[in-house]
Each structure stands twice: as structure tokens, then as C-alpha cells.
């Protein structure tokens, strides 16, 4: 398949089941809601070493938030429910509780609940107050700038992590420009996050390493400087490869994000140095979710 001179490989991205949650951070203004959200979702690019993958789902208008203030919806993905709950609590406690004027609310409903403010309340040292409003429990925790309001729990849902595609370009600048264009469009899709810095990862990995202590290492088949010394996937004109990784609440969300992202890259086309779109997989043996690029773009 070729779109605007860009070859879409007959391959697929392989993704895994994960557990996810969503929370809404509000603040005095959008600036401070974003600061809290960025802090909360920082150092959360990959479960390999961060314990979770997290990102901003979208910015919310004051009319969309529970307390009528500007807000940001964040999503956190982890391999299991226990790890997810731990990450959520740690991040909420260190990054949102501490952030001026913030409040924290559940962002997704589910039968499975995990603590949001439920345990943070102990920071109140006995001065905390519970309020049940419309059947939901909130904790009012006295802090130095007033009160930190946090909903007791949020929902935990089954989700998918590891959707991805690779952008193969003639130069580093062209690969980056294409990925920026893709991320701009993908950020508009609800229910997905692109957890890497700016949504883009330049150090895609393969499973395993020559070093026994490492379980992942550089994806040498896609490293342009190794073209002559490894079993490369790259043709001679490819000088830079960047990857976009997508975690989503459903397969459909990831499908949609990949479609708009790849389309944005293809819109730049071969004229702007974009040569191929590929994807990372492990032969289909590890992840039950397969995102076939050509099917998505059909």
C-alpha cells in the first residue's frame, strides 16, 4: 500500500492487555491544572522502568469538570491493577496534592474502584472531612492554600497498551516534523495517550539484550547507523526512524489514533522525505492485539 508516496508496510503493531484509570485534575486556571497533570504524568513513558505509562488525555473546559473549574484529564496504564493503584496513589499524593489550588476527581466509571483520595486523606492528620455528594464520597483535606478536594475512588478498566507505528524518513528533521504532525492530530482522539516525551520515541526497543541484566535493548534493525552491520530493516535512503506508541482504553480508540496519526504523516508524503510507515511486533506470539497497518488505512 502506498499513500502519497509513503509505503505502508504489510505488518502489524502488537499490543498487550493493561489496566487503566483516568482522573480529572482541576485548578484555579488551566495553567495550574496542566502543571499538576504534567507532574503527575511525568516519568511515565514505559512500564519497563517507570512502573506505568501515563499521559494527558485532553484538556477540559470548565463546563466539563465536576467543580466548574478548568481541568485536565489524565490516564495511567499499568500491567496490573495492584501496580496501577500504587502508581495512582503515589503520583496523586506527590504531584496533585502538592500542586497549588488543585482538586482531583474520578475520570472514569467502573465496577472496579481504586483509591484516589481515599488514602491521601490521612495527610489531613485527623482534620480531614468526608462529604458524600450524589452518592460519591469526597475528601476535604486541609492544606496551606485552603482545602484539597479529592474524590475517594476512581474506576479501573481493562485497556490496551503498546499500539505503535514507525515513521521512516530521509532525515531526522523530517521524521520529527512528521511525528509532530501526527501527534497534533492524535491528541484530538479521546481515550488514548502517547506516553513518550512529546508523544514520540526515538529509542524503540527490541526484547532482550546481549547483557543478561537487561530485558530490552535498542532496536538495531531500525537503527540507521547500523545499516551495514546488522540485519537491517532499512533501505539505503532512510536516515532516521521515530516511533509513536499508543495506549488506549479500547482497540477502537487505538485504531482511530493510529489512523489519524499515519494519515497526518502521509499527508506530508514522500515530497517531505517520509518514505515508509512500519510497526513493531514480536511475531504475534506475545500480544493478543494486532493492529495491521494496511487494514487500519484501508
Amino acid at each position, binding site marked *: 500500500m502506498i499513500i502519497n508516496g509513503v509505503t505502508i508496510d504489510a505488518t502489524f503493531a502488537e499490543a498487550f492487555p493493561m489496566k487503566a484509570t483516568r482522573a480529572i485534575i482541576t485548578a484555579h486556571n488551566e495553567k495550574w491544572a496542566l502543571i499538576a497533570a504534567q507532574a503527575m504524568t511525568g516519568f511515565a513513558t514505559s512500564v519497563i522502568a517507570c512502573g506505568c505509562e501515563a499521559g494527558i488525555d485532553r484538556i477540559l473546559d470548565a463546563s466539563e469538570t465536576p467543580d*466548574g473549574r478548568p481541568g485536565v484529564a489524565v490516564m495511567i496504564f499499568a500491567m496490573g491493577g495492584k501496580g496501577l493503584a500504587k502508581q495512582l496513589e503515589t503520583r496523586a499524593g506527590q504531584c496533585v496534592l502538592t500542586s497549588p489550588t488543585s482538586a482531583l476527581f474520578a475520570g472514569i466509571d467502573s465496577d472496579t474502584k481504586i483509591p484516589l483520595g481515599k488514602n491521601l486523606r490521612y495527610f489531613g492528620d485527623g*482534620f480531614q*472531612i468526608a462529604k*458524600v455528594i*450524589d452518592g460519591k464520597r469526597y475528601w476535604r483535606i486541609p492544606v496551606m492554600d485552603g*482545602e484539597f*478536594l479529592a474524590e475517594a475512588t476512581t474506576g479501573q478498566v481493562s485497556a490496551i497498551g503498546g499500539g505503535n507505528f514507525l515513521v521512516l524518513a530521509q532525515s531526522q528533521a523530517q521524521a520529527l516534523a512528521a511525528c509532530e504532525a501526527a501527534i497534533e492530530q492524535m491528541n484530538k482522539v479521546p481515550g488514548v495517550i502517547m506516553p513518550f516525551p512529546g508523544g514520540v520515541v526515538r529509542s524503540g526497543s527490541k526484547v532482550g539484550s546481549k547483557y543478561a541484566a537487561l530485558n530490552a535493548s535498542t532496536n538495531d534493525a531500525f537503527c540507521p547507523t547500523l545499516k551495514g552491520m546488522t540485519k537491517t530493516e532499512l533501505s539505503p535512503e532512510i536516515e532516521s526512524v521515530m516511533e509513536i506508541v499508543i495506549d488506549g482504553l479500547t482497540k477502537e480508540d487505538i485504531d482511530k489514533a493510529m489512523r489519524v496519526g499515519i494519515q497526518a504523516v502521509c499527508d506530508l508524503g514522500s515530497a517531505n522525505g517520509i518514505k515508509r510507515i512500519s510497526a513493531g511486533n514480536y511475531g504475534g506470539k506475545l500480544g493478543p492485539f494486532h493492529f495491521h497497518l494496511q487494514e487500519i488505512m484501508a
Partner: protein
Amino acid sequence: MSALTFTLKYQPKQRVDMSPLVCQLLQGKTLEQIAALELHSGKLKLRVDQVFDISGDDAQAIVIKNSFEKLDFVGKELDGGSITVEGDAGAYLAMGMKSGEVKVTGNAGLYAACEMKKGYLEIGGNVGDFLGAALPGNKMGMKGGTVLVKGNAGERVGDHLRRGTILIEGNAGDYCGSRMTAGTIAVMGQTGRYLGYAMRRGTLLLWNPPQLPASFNDCGSHTLGFLPLLFNSFKKLNSKFADASVAFNRVQRYAGDMSEMGKAEVLVKIK
């Protein structure tokens, strides 16, 4: 299906225990079976059809017409469905209600919503003492749900209140919020003496400055983030509380009762 309607034929001299006439106990019964049920009235046991004309067939929507102030225990332990009282209701209205809805167009007597667990109670007129309270000797009053009073409330509103919300559009009598363990009472009108007497936790939300006991301490003026959520939750009510113009989030906060646990608060609207 039309609402199962009980129209009072005459006003019995003694008080009548209406507790058998709740939705879950009448579900599946024929009109003949309902007519044969017995209601206690003083020393007498009265058949339902001696006291009421019965019509309709939907036991999940009960209407009591021509009601007066001696019909006690209306909606006692109601577990789903709705009861509408046209007229006044007696004491112990919606006592121990588990879920569902009770609406009274007129006034209600003592101990309305006492030990209520969940659901919604609306009183169109005034209500007597001990609204949402615990029965004498018990330590836990209303444990959940919402009570709306469009008129005035008597003394001891929310005595031993454990959880839930009591909204009073009019005035509340003395000892409002006494011995409260938790929950919320909002009063748009005036409150009486001994407000929050021995209150442990919970919130009294007031539109007008109260006569506060000396055992409440001023914590200053604040903008509280939970108040917009609370007022939002009132929007679905048929009440002045639903009106966005009555909402506020700037309050003077008083903590007390310092002669008790001291973790309760009185929030007074800053005008």
C-alpha cells in the same frame, strides 16, 4: 397502571399506624387483600377499607389522599417506589426508609426521616421536632438520603445525624444539628438557639448569621471547593436550593463544638 390510591373516608379519633401501606409490602397483593389488611389505631385494629377508599393498581406508586396529621409511620422502611401524601402527615414519616421517594404536600409531625437510610423525602410545608434524628435512646439518626423541607422545621433538626443531607428552605428551631456525628444540614432561613449543640462532625450550611454558642471557634473566611459540587447536586430538586442564584462558595467557617469532638463546622454565607 394507575397509582394505588388510598382516599381517607373520615378522620379517626386515634392516631393510625400506616406502616403496612408501603410499596414493598403491597406489591403483588390484590385490592381485596389490601382492603383486608389491618391498621392499628389506638386500641383498635381497623381494616384498610374501613378507613380508606382504595383504587388503582400500581403498588410502586402509592397516593394517600385527604391525609391528616394523625396518620403516623407513612413510608416506614420504604424500600423502593414512591408514596405521595396529599395533605398532612403524622409522626415518624419515612422512618427508616431504605430507598424510594416520599412526598408530602402539607406539614409533617415529629421524627420525620428519623433513622432514614437512603432515598428522598420532600415535605411541602412545615415539619415538627427531631427531623432526621435518632429514636430516643438510639445513637444514630438518619444515615443517608436527602430530606427537603419547603417550610420551617422544629427543634433538634438532625439530632444524632450520621450521614445524608437535610435541606430546609425556611427556618430551623433550637438545637439544630445537635449531637450530629456527620452529614449536612442546610438552612436558608433563620436558626434558633444552641445551634450545633454537642455536634461532633458534619456541616451546618447557613444563609443567615446564627446565634453561635461560645464553644464554636471562628476559622476565618474561605472559598471552599466542595460547595459548587454540593450545590450542583441540588439542581435536580424541585426547590429554591436548585436555583443557581442562591449558591455560594465564600463562607465564614466556625469549628466546634469544642466541648465535644470539635470537628464539625458551621459555614455561613458571606454576603
